[in-house]
């Protein structure tokens, strides 16, 4: 059995007959009664809430808390009584000289007996990430989406039967928790920055085996259905609370399902923009995080999605690609970039180029002119499904006029030098359109 790295020692110091004679009469190691882990993914940071029952005596109590070989930030330590708070005064927290990983609370108590206390601190080494699996229907009009979270514990501490909560959101931190944990002195020393090497996290084989047994035992006790994850918004973040308790020994990861949606209507969107993607067509799956798409209850945390497609009746799959996507707020559009493709083609061809309307100064130098380009854009859908194609053209100047002809709807001005053309193509359809762009240069642009 692996030794606990966090120890809590209570030393009761009391006064006898008015004589200020300190006496340590009891040393106990109270068990951790409950633990709660709130794990962040935008920073290497976890808020740990540790509930323990302490036996207090009337008078001054010294409580020692040590955390060797963990990644706890000592500057974040706080202890609060959960009962008789008006009778218990936490005088100070002392980090004694020449001892690492140890804090001593001086607690003045007007009561005696068992008192539950809550110890909170920030630690490094626990992390989580979201990842997803999407499965397109054969006609690629809908997609099933399964979301997972994977929680990893490299904190140096085993957390048994802990409530696990995950925070989605970007918090601001000014110090890395791991750096604070590795300081020789909790708040450093005046005028000096002293660091010592990170605590060794090497695993012993016996410890690993013990941890594995714990994990197996904990999993055996799990419910016969997947755990639910409660999701709620707090401030600018989203809090995911995993049902029940989890045991995550140091060094282990756990994968948990976060949600599943069977049918999300999706649009096969293809994009072409030379300035962003070169001369390749990029494939996107587009949908919206809203009720119409059987989503929209909560934001979707950013992560990696692997997209498969059902092929044939035997439920065989083909791998379509993967995408990193950003956090998606409720009601926001989603575009999953699955990479470049060659089965939808966009071929811009400069059919004609001309210059004209020259302006000269008194010395005969050219000061202004126009450039006229006639482009033909051919868009070919070689696939057996309907696709939507978004073609963006940048002109490099804000002084331009555009004439259009051909097989497409209206264009939309995106910004001062960019327009986009949206086309819908049926299976195996090819469309062509022309546009003539006139750009003004020099004094013609004034």
């Amino acid at each position, binding site marked *: 059995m692996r030794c606990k790295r966090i120890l809590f020692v209570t030393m009761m110091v009391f006064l006898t007959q008015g004589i200020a004679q300190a006496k340590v009469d009891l040393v106990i190691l109270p068990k951790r009664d409950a633990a*709660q882990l*709130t794990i*962040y993914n*935008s920073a290497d940071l976890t*808020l740990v*809430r540790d509930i323990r029952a302490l036996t207090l005596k009337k008078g001054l109590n010294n409580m020692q808390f040590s955390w060797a070989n963990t990644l706890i930030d000592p*500057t*974040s330590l706080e202890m609060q009584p959960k009962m008789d708070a008006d009778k218990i005064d*936490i*005088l*100070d*927290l*002392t*980090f*004694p*000289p*020449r001892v690492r990983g140890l804090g001593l609370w001086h607690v003045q108590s007007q009561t005696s007996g068992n008192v539950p206390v809550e110890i*909170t601190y*920030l630690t490094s080494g626990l992390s989580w990430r979201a990842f997803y699996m999407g499965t397109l229907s054969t006609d690629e009009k809908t997609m099933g989406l399964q979301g997972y979270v994977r929680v990893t514990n490299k904190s140096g501490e085993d957390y048994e039967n802990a409530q696990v909560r995950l*925070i989605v*959101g*970007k*918090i*601001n*931190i*000014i*110090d890395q928790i791991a750096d604070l944990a590795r300081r020789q*002195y*909790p*708040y450093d*020393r*005046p*005028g*000096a920055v002293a660091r010592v090497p990170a605590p060794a996290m090497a695993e012993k084989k016996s410890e690993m085996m013990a941890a594995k047994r714990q994990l197996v035992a904990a999993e055996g006790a799990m419910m016969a259905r997947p755990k639910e994850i409660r999701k*709620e*918004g*707090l*401030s*600018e*973040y989203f*809090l995911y609370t995993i049902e029940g308790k989890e045991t995550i020994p140091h060094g282990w990861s756990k994968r948990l399902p976060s949600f599943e949606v069977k049918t999300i209507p999706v649009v096969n969107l293809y994009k072409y923009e030379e300035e962003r993607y070169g001369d390749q067509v990029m494939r996107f799956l587009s949908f919206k995080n809203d009720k119409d798409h059987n989503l929209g209850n909560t*934001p979707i945390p950013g992560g990696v999605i692997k997209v498969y497609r059902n092929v044939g009746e035997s439920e065989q799959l083909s791998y379509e690609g993967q995408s*990193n996507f*950003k*956090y998606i*707020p*409720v009601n*926001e559009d989603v575009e999953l970039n699955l990479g470049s493709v060659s089965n939808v083609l966009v071929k811009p061809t400069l059919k004609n180029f001309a210059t004209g309307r020259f302006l000269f*100064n*008194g*010395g005969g130098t050219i*000061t202004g002119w126009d450039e006229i380009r006639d482009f033909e854009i051919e868009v070919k859908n070689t696939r057996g499904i309907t696709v939507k194609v978004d073609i963006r053209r940048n002109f490099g100047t*804000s*002084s331009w006029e555009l004439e259009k002809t051909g097989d497409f709807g209206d264009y939309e001005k*995106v*910004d*001062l030098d960019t327009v986009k053309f949206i086309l819908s193509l049926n299976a195996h359809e090819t469309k062509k359109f022309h546009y003539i762009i006139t750009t003004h240069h020099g*004094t013609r*642009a*004034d």
Partner: protein
Amino acid sequence: MKRKITIHKLLILGAIIFMITSPVEARIKLVALPDRGKTIIRLDNPQATLIEDERILTLQQGTNKVDFSWKGVSIDMDSIRLTVLTQRDLVTLLNVSYPPNEAALVWEIHSMKPIEVTVRISYLLSFIDRLITYKGISDQEEQEMSLKSFLVLRNFSGEDFENATVLLDEGQSFEQRINHEETKQVLFLKKDKVPIEKRWTFDAAKQPWDPEKLDTNVGIPVSYRIENVATSGLGAFALSNGKVRVFQEDGHGSTIFLGEDATGMVPVGENMDVYIGDSRDIVVTQRKMRDQHINVRRDKKNRVVLYDTDEVINATIENFKDKPAMLTMIQHIPGQWDMEECNMSYKRKDAFRLEFEITLPAHGKEDLMMHYHRRNLR
């Protein structure tokens, strides 16, 4: 012959008292070490820590020498002062001398008669200081906060202090014992129900304009504003600079960590703005839709010497949250300019900076359009 008597480990105070009956040839040090009386650690200046020690000296009639020496601590020698606190009319401080190659000095004190006097020795001591940290727990509605402030006393001076009085700004004080290499964290301020104002800020000079073109989310910075005024339950003294960690009640008897920031000194009447993190549920997409030269003026050689611009900026602000929000949007227009048309009201904060306060309903969207001319560009 020299003799040193050490208090604890490092600081040495030897009071050498003897009658001067003939010219001094050598320093003869005293046998009896005066007990250290009251000690004050004064931390009101963040640049330096002043120690004030009270001692009782037994003086003989005539001239006495008091030797003050130290080892293993860093004392600013020019900062050492001796103040006589009792029977001042009988005692005169004649001079101070520094013995060669020693961390020491000698006071020459003349006494009218044999007496005991209380003196205070003051000096600046290095490697002992204090930090201030804050911990705030916001309520679920983010309307008010329980604010705690902790004093962190760091003693790496080489000196142990038993029962010292620690003095902070504005006369706050408490008794504390702190040994060398010890760090102590003490709660010294706790205020409940401190009103907070939550603010979202988009600064067009700092944030990306088009989030669609980026692979990562563009967050809108979110901050809490706390006013250091009496109506907030504060305002009694300036709030020192330090790290602020902000938590929020989660409605289940627990809290989450919202973020942390470093605040500067906040004088009474001023605001503490704590940047906690970024909102990814408010999205600003800003684009320049027009930027053309107009009113072009030329010299005799037809070269452009002066022109104006005709510029249009559109910004779409979307609130994906299920609560309303007030976004402060800061726009920058350099040089001389005239606003031709703007569909929202703004405050001109300075010559080049405009500030919009945009109310966003839950799941709402607002569009800003600014049409302006920049003037007389060369």
